[in-house]
């Protein structure tokens, strides 16, 4: 009787939903004994939130604490799927359907995003209340919010190739130009407006380099900006780093730039009044002596 598990099974195995969809699935309750399961009501709730916490780097500790306590609720919905009583057998499957609709005060359901300072999360939670002798049991699953193609937020990626050329002369932020080895890297990026579902594409060619190259990498960086009354805080953190050149790469051959945008950790570039989520890509070449050069490309991610 006491050993009892509860689980949510979604019909959509991808767990991806858009505004206006109906989340369908079933709650599965499994008991260990042969006796029926007694409970004081089973409740299902859907909760969508934007959590913002400022880093201590930008703001004072107290302030950070204060500001983080101001989450934005996007959706909140709860329903009872079973009245208190007994479940007929030791295994029960209770089907449910929940419409996904933003709260009246909220205009958009932002896409799911797991960042460092900003989190957009949608949780579906089931609670089984039980008599005071037994602990309540619950289970939650995260669903992934995707912008609806018809939404105002849904933008389309544009293919607009951008050529780049990295030479010692093109570098900024250098103290002693004489110490820079002679090199020339040229290449092309398919576009800076990229579809999140497709890979980041391009290619680069090392034309020459007087010092052997150790590695060439592309770095995906998130830029999170939180606005508040006093101004805003902007933080840059790395999401992932992908090596595309290993060792002293051959000269004169096009090395593909190819990176898949990770799910959850990226979302379409989002700019709201309270916060901004933006992305950049750094192209990093590391020489054998561990000196490195970086070329930065701000990019805009789109859903479609």
């Amino acid at each position, binding site marked *: 009787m006491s050993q009892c598990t509860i689980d949510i099974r979604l019909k*959509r195995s*991808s767990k991806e939903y858009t505004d206006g969809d109906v989340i369908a699935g079933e709650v599965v309750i499994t008991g260990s004994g042969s006796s029926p399961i007694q409970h004081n009501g089973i409740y299902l709730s859907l909760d969508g939130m934007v959590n913002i916490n400022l880093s201590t780097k930008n703001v004072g500790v107290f302030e950070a604490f204060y500001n983080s306590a101001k989450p934005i609720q996007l959706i909140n919905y709860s329903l009872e799927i079973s009245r208190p009583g007994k479940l007929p057998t030791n295994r029960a499957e209770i089907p449910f359907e929940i419409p996904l609709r933003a709260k009246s005060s909220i205009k958009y359901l932002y896409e799911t995003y797991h960042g460092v300072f900003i989190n957009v999360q949608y949780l579906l939670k089931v609670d089984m209340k039980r008599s005071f002798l037994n602990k309540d049991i619950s289970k939650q699953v995260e669903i992934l919010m995707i912008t609806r193609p018809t939404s105002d937020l849904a933008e389309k990626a544009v293919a607009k190739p951008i050529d780049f050329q990295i030479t010692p002369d093109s570098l900024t932020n250098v103290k002693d130009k004489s110490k820079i080895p002679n090199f020339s890297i040229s290449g092309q990026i398919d576009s800076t407006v990229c579809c999140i579902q497709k890979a980041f594409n391009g290619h680069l060619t090392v034309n020459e380099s007087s010092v052997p190259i150790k590695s060439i990498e592309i770095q995906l960086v998130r830029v999170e900006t939180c606005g508040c009354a006093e101004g805003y805080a902007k933080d840059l953190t790395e999401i992932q780093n992908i090596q*595309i*050149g*290993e*060792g002293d790469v*051959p000269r004169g*051959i096009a090395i*593909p730039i190819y990176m898949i945008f*990770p799910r959850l950790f990226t979302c379409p570039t989002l700019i709201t009044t309270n916060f901004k989520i933006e992305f950049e890509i750094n192209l990093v070449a590391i020489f054998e002596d561990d000196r490195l050069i970086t070329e930065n490309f701000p990019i805009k991610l789109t859903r479609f």
Partner: protein
Amino acid sequence: MSTSNSEAVLAKGFKWIARTRNYEHEKSKINLNTVNSNEHPLRPLIENVNSKELNKNSSLSSINDPLSASSLDPLSKMVAEVSLKEKQEKLKENEAKLSFEPWPLKKNAILTNMTTVSDKIKNRLEQLDQFDDDNMQEMANLSQQDFIKRIDELNNALLSAWNEDERVKSLKIVIQCSKLLADTSVIQFYPSKFVLITDILDTFGKLVYERIKSKSTYIAPGSSKPQPLPENFTADIVPASAKETCRNWFFKIASIRELLPRIYVEVSILKCTNFLSDESISKSISRLVSMTSGIGDPLVAAYTNCYICRVGISIEPSIREYQLLSLNNLLFVFRQISNEKVTKLIMNQKIDFKSYIELYCPAIDWILQSVTYKRNDEYLSEVLDKCIEVSNANKIVNGLLINSMMASFEPNFISQIANKIVEMIKDCDEQYFPKYLLFRNLAMCLVFGENGSDALNKDSKEKNKRDLQLLNDVWKLVTKFEDPAQYISCAEIWIEFTLKNFSKKEINTLLGDIIRHVQPDRKFENFYPQLQSIVSKILIYVTDYNVLFSMDKFMQFLTLFQKDSVKMEVYKSVTNGFLKCTQNFNDDIIVMNSMMQICKSMHDYVNALTLDDEKREISHMICSFINKIELIEKDKIEQYLNFYSDCRASFSNLDTVIALLVHKVNLLANETLKIVKYKHTRKTAAFVRACVAFSFITIPSLTNPVLKLQLYLESSQVALLNECLSQADAFLKSAISLIPEIQKQIDAQQTALLNNSTLNYDGSNLAKLSSSMTSIGAVEKFLFEYVSNMMTTLLVIPDNPDQGVLYLLTGVLNLVQKHFQWENMELKFYLLSNILIIFNSLKQENYLYHLENVESNDTLYGSDPKYLKEINNLIESVLDDVLKLLDSLSPSKQSNLGLDLLNKLIGHCDLANEKTIELAKYLWSLSIKNQQMTKQHENLIKTLKFRSAKNSEYNLLIEKLKI
């Protein structure tokens, strides 16, 4: 007791009186009437098993034929048809697989070739060198064995992690593994490392694929139950959950930081792309291939491409685009390998240029093979041009590329462009790739490539011309090789090319060139295996020994083999080849002399230490050779005798051969007799006497006395046939006097065995008796049969006027009675009773058989009373002996032997004579003394009664015996 008894026996005065026999009359009575028959009594009753099968086959092949189809009903016919088709398809598949070298084969080759024995030591040294570098990768300082062990552990770890549902851990292990492939610190080991690690990756890929597949079910149209995916599923029936799992894997892999693991792991699960979409695999492969251009180390890049190609082929052989891309990639990288780069690299690795370059071989071979597999010539030429371009641009990889091209292109194609390749090889830099290897491989391609093009005989003349040009071009270069090892390893293959395409002139020239190269300083001593292989190749292709031996260099070539054991092997193979290939040997003098020389060398090799088996083998070969030389021309018959004399001189150490020669000469004499139609002219008589003389002086040189005896007898018979009476006498005399010798030898042998002393061991003496005759029992048995046999010859031999009556037979008698110490008294008894019978036969007026032109004793003496008396005396003494012998034996033996003698008596003696009847009575009483009536007794009684019914002469006997 026994002595008094025997006296009593003698006192009775038994007589062995011969019955007078009319052989002609008896024969006519015995002979049954014969009738011609059409039926063979042993012919099988059931027939046509084969023809039925034939019918079946024909009905399969021509199903439309209504007549032949009757044997099968339509249903089973269809089944048979289908299975036949399936079989054919399978066969085709297998063929396709065969022509594409499978990876496991390649894998093993890499594992065995690409590791040095001294790996461990080298690694230790490296460890010392790099001792200060503590951060060295954990793996780098492991020896090969340790490494393999470690890889094994990783493999097990992967499996156990997988089985415990720890997918992330499995992925981590796989990533760790593929990271190792970025490390080239022990570069010679890299190819093996590649093989070991990609094995793990393959396992991983299979695990992931199988799991996703097993988890996904689909609902087939028309059914409501979910089913497992079929073998050739399409992406649209894969359930969403499986797709999601699959996508998760790819997302996870896409976020691997390092390039190399990202490529390898994605490739390893590439097959899973099939779950997501039906077409995207080819895109993915192409992308992965292009990603490899980010790999700095050319060796690592080459092997990464190799892995992609390998997996690509295993997933979907029809996707081909990426292969060329891969090749291009590789060729581009090759262009980048500059002198200084390699120099620097190999300085660090402490290996030489060649071994560094060779490390690329397996990868490039594989990629080229994938690219060129089953492509048309046009496509191949394109690839070829690309390779040539690169190889011209970069001398370092030049040789490597040519080698790989030869290894992976269709041999047929290679033989078409052989000229081009020779030109390219000419330009190669010896420093980076050994030229001799290239030439060697080229020859292999040419030899293999020819098979298919045999059909194109139209332009064979032109082709021949081209080939000759090619051979000349190549040989100009090869002949200049300073290292004889390189030279010979080329020659070993090119000889096959020459053998296949050219006539004896070119072969001879090539052989001459080889001799010229290895002759000085006895260099040939180092190359026996290669030289041997050359000989065996020649023997395969040149089956006409007239041609073979007419090449003057061939015999000269054979003289290169100076080490005895090798020489023997080569000579044996030559002789074997000769025996196999030569059906009708028309005694070409060159072939004969050459073969004689070879056989003589083989014979000379035999000595006291030679093993029996080898001796036997050599003897057998020489015998076969002699047998090949058959009597063909009647007017050259004397030459054969000369030839046999030569052989005797040459092969004196081999008993078997000598024995054969005696047989042969005997045959020669008989053939001569046949030719002159059994009437010798003076000339032929002289020749025949020469033959007999040959045998007479040859036989004593044999060491095996048993063989000697047999030959003496045979030769005596031949001599008799040919009217050489005194010679026949001499043969038999020799035989008779030889028999006591055998006894001495056995005694010596026995004592030697008893003393067990190896010191006194006289090999030559012991070896004389053949292995089956080591025991006295066996020898006595043989002698019994032999002497009995000899006596049948003695029947027709006329007495020599210079000697006494029945001189030879008396000799035999003496031998049996006195000179030979019998161990088995029964045999002696039987032999003596046989002698009694022969005496009976000798007393007849007309002997049972005669020889043409030979007057036997019956005509000679004409039943002269003196002669008969002489025989009677002999009979008496023998009978005396026989009875004494019988008396001394145990009762059970007495019973058996008595009965036997009684049988003989009934058969050969005069049953009217009372004293003979008395003897019969005595024998009968002896035989039933044991109160036992055996089958033999019963048979005897039955026979007697049967005969007495027809013939009254048996009545007295029956009466006396009281039966």
